[in-house]
């Protein structure tokens, strides 16, 4: 076991990236993720890497586009309004099939919103965000240790699938301090050789990295089909989910990221009161762990979706479970977060509701 050190989530993610061999970071300050560029500006020179404080989020993501094409493990980070600005570049990176990590420590929106934690960028993260038919691998850690581990994995998945990965955190995950075991990086996959790198055509034919496909006429159709095939492959190979006391649960809470931590506390409180409550937590938001959700839904009476938004994640839950059980909702945006007590109250109201009275489906 490695030594446990005390770091903020934002610093944990940065150190994990450094450990995983990330050697290029470009970003622009925005609360609540400022520790990331600050940490990177200090650490990158120590490891021979590059830190650039970009003139904008747009420039930052395009610098990452260049660095990735140049063969570096690279990343950028921001929070909600800044991630909106990056969407152009993300679309290009996805279209050109370049690996990189993008982190979104979500804050309240829409617009400038506030700097409190939020989960209102779910749609933007998992459904696209930028233009065109593309997908990002989206990860939702619930602790700083998981953030550390997933950040390392993210670079492997990005390289393995040649696809950008989005770390979907929130202001609390970025700001909270927890002991983290700094584990050395070890690749979790046999990584393919990067045969797309632009480093000068000495000894080989010139390479092109591009997203414009004008010729042949059906070229872009073919490229899109190729992308979709890759996405189906990722869906079949990568799906992570965590379950807690769902086996005998009458009600299963579905929550991701920091909300799932609070939900877990509520599950404990409910169990102490004799209520059979469990928790299902997706770790990959895309691919969505549909099978796990479906199985849980068939074995329980009701699902309660809790999220820090007015209902985005709930749509994927409903799609996954194929109406196998009723779904209730608890959520608000704008920086609101649920307490264990609020969740418990909602659970109690569900238990006494007519749906529950009918018993198991």
């Amino acid at each position: 076991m490695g030594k446990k050190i005390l770091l903020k989530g934002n610093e944990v993610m940065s150190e994990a990236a450094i450990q995983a061999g990330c050697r290029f970071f470009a970003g622009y300050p925005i609360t609540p993720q400022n520790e990331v560029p600050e940490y990177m500006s200090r650490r990158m020179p120590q490891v021979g890497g590059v830190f650039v404080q970009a003139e904008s989020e747009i420039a930052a993501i395009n610098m990452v586009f260049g660095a990735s094409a140049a063969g570096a493990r690279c990343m950028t980070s921001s929070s909600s309004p800044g991630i909106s600005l990056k969407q152009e570049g993300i679309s290009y990176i996805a279209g050109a099939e370049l690996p990189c990590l993008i982190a979104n420590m979500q804050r309240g929106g829409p617009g400038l919103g506030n700097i409190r934690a939020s989960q209102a960028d779910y749609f933007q993260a998992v459904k696209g965000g930028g233009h065109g038919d593309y997908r990002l691998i989206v990860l939702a850690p619930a602790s700083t240790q998981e953030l550390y581990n997933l950040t390392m994995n993210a670079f492997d998945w990005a390289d393995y699938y040649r696809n950008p990965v989005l770390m979907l955190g929130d202001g609390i995950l970025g700001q909270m301090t927890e002991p983290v075991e700094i584990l050395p990086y070890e690749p979790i996959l046999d990584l393919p050789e990067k045969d797309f790198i632009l480093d000068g055509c000495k000894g080989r034919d010139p390479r092109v990295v591009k997203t414009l496909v004008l010729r042949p006429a059906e070229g872009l159709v073919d490229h899109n089909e190729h992308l979709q095939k890759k996405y189906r492959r990722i869906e079949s190979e990568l799906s992570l989910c965590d379950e807690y006391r769902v086996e005998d649960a009458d009600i299963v809470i579905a929550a991701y990221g920091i909300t799932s931590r609070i939900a877990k506390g509520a599950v404990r409180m409910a169990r102490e009161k004799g209520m059979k409550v469990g928790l299902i937590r997706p770790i990959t938001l895309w691919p969505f762990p549909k099978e796990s959700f479906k199985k849980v839904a068939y074995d329980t009476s009701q699902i309660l979706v809790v999220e820090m938004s007015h209902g985005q994640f709930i749509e994927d839950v409903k799609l996954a479970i194929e109406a196998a059980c009723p779904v209730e909702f608890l959520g608000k945006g704008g920086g609101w977060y649920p307490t264990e007590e609020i969740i418990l109250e909602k659970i109690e109201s569900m238990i006494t509701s007519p749906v529950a009275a009918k018993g198991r489906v």
Partner: protein
Amino acid sequence: MDRQETKIVMAGFGGQGIVVIGNILARAAIIEDKNVVGMVCYGAEMRGGTANATVIISNDEIASPFVNHPDMAIILNGPSLDRFEPEISQDGLVLMNTSMISRDPRRSDLACIKVNATKIAHEIGNLRVSNIVSVGAFIEHTRLLSISSIEQAISDLFSNKKAELVEVNLKALHTGAERSTCLQPLDIK
């Protein structure tokens, strides 16, 4: 194993070293192999405004990182007492820096540790250690963590800066422990 979880809030003026208190408690908790989650209220205020931070220490996995009703509060100035006193949980505890707080707690269910932290820090010769004076008082009366873990945490935190900083902070810790009072008998579970 009984689940023992303590939620603590620390509050004062920006610049009083609120974050450092949280850092030291968290480091000491790690030394004792406990779980800990810390959070700093982040915002636009850097100096002079009110600052607060929270720490949760548990012998089990910590679920929610949020502290809505702290079991204990370390309060270094008057406005923070006004703000946090109503939020402290029933039969909780408040530590007050009496140098900066002129009133007693309004609630009768709270145990109250009093320490003249800013004055003691002034006597020690470094106003910036009033936070650690408060930690000394806090640990002395709550025994939430062992004094040796706190000493170790202080050494770890300040050793890469200046050696004399470790010394003055340890002095602040012990003086705070000695020169503080607790107004109600405590029953720390």
